[in-house]
């Protein structure tokens, strides 16, 4: 009996060998960390004065402001992208050729272009037509970031939802039609709710990606968390040096905490979904796999489910 495909259950000899490897490996990992810490210490990045900056109210305020702005962008973009996702998913499954083509083209275009470029282009456009659009001050950056995040993540969410809608058993749709429901009613009251339920873990994982991508605001100089951190580190001088390491460690911890909290939510929902016996497979909470792959992950999981018919054709 062994629990791994790769390794047999270790016997006495292998156990000794594993223990030796453990010590050697542990020392190697420890050595790497110690080396990095010592080098940074030599540069004075761990001097108490460097870390003292977090005691100043101004520093704390700007970090707090950054977190608030990041969350604000995330909240607006999350809501809008989910709405757009539903719209596009329904559009892709529409009976009208024109609507279907438009939705498909929109999704393919914005999924293929890097989000950074979309955001940058929107920013330039908004700056150019600033007075016509009634934008002022920070608003330009805010809307460029929010709309960029919305069109990109909306496209990805649409594909996730479409896979979800296709995984709803055919009988559901047929029964709804047999009851005399109209197309819109079938879609909105029968198919979409079940699709959302099945895909909730994947949807939330994609929201983690959205949260991480708010940091692209840094490039268009929008005052979100990362930009604030960079400003802090760049402007403060302690012992003739910029406190990059302390600021990045603190900022990174904030980002990781926020993302892990969201991922934990996805895993929790997945486990709850597994418990219910509805016959609809709940997608793996998976990982916030890099950007586009929500689609492929979903395909993979729906295809491998024996009872879920999938309408994915390519």
């Amino acid at each position: 009996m062994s629990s791994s495909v790769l390794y047999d259950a270790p016997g006495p000899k292998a156990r000794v060998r594993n223990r030796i490897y453990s010590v050697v490996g542990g020392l190697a990992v420890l050595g790497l960390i110690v080396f990095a810490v010592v080098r940074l210490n030599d540069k004075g990045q761990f001097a108490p004065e460097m870390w003292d900056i977090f005691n100043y109210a101004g520093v704390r305020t700007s970090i707090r402001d950054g977190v608030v702005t990041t969350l604000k962008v995330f909240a607006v973009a999350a809501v809008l992208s989910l709405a757009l996702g539903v719209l596009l998913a329904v559009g892709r499954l529409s009976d009208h050729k024109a609507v279907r083509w438009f939705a498909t083209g929109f999704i393919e275009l914005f999924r293929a272009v890097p989000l950074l470029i979309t955001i940058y282009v929107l920013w330039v456009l908004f700056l150019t037509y600033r007075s016509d659009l009634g934008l002022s001050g920070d608003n330009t950056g805010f809307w460029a970031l929010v709309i960029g995040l919305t069109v990109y993540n909306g496209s990805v969410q649409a594909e996730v939802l479409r896979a979800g809608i296709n995984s709803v058993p055919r009988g559901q749709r047929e029964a709804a039609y047999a009851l005399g429901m109209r197309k819109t009613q079938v879609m909105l009251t029968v198919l979409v709710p079940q699709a959302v339920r099945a895909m909730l873990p994947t949807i939330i994982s994609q929201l983690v990606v959205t949260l991480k991508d708010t940091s692209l605001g840094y490039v268009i100089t929008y005052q979100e968390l990362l930009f604030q951190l960079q400003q802090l580190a760049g402007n403060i001088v302690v012992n003739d040096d910029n406190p990059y390491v302390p600021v990045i460690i603190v900022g990174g911890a904030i980002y990781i905490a926020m993302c892990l909290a969201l991922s934990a939510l996805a895993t929790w929902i997945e486990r709850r979904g597994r418990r219910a016996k509805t016959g609809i497979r709940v997608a793996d909470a998976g990982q916030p796999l890099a950007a586009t792959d929500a689609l492929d992950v979903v395909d993979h999981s729906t295809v491998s489910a024996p009872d879920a018919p999938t309408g994915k054709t390519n």
Partner: protein
Amino acid sequence: MNVLLDHLPQFREGFLGTLSITAASAALALVLGIVIAGFRVSPIPPLRAFGTAWVTLLRNTPLTLLFLIAFFVIPQIFFPGTSPFVLAMGALGCYTSSFVCEAVRSGINTVPLGQAEAARSLGMTFFQTLRLIVFPQATRSVIPPMSSIFIALTKNSAIAGAFSNTELFNVSKLLSDKGFAIGWIFLWIALCYLVITFAISGLFRLLESRLEVAR
């Protein structure tokens, strides 16, 4: 329209820049990812912990923050004066390696336990089992997610342009700073990315059909 024709050299340079940074970091991510996946499935606790920490930390950090780390912290630890290309490659490669690692690990997990047990009972050694039984089966299930990881990598490489690398985003930024119509620039840049991502997905589809077996 004229933006493309008048600035063909810049566009070409940007295109090649994106290609080279994507290829370089893809290679790094592949190597690192497989090594870390090896750590994560090994029976050696410290290495396993290291692998888990690596994946969790990198996957939950925004890539832009990793770029900041690569450009402001890494030179203090290792080599000052490294070129932006190498630093960007490091950031992109490390970030992507965590996704590659998870794909490889779940690929290994799709191989049924019975396969390895059968191989062992036939008297195969560890490396024979790995080479003849586990590896070929794992490869097939790893290919589809790998394709999307590399497409995502291509798009993520745009961030390198914001950190003084010459690639497509950088080119679009330069041209729009010069006052050319952003709409046209966007269209051409989008086309460039479509070419690259279609090439990648085509390549992987080819690979998939080559390795396909009836199961």
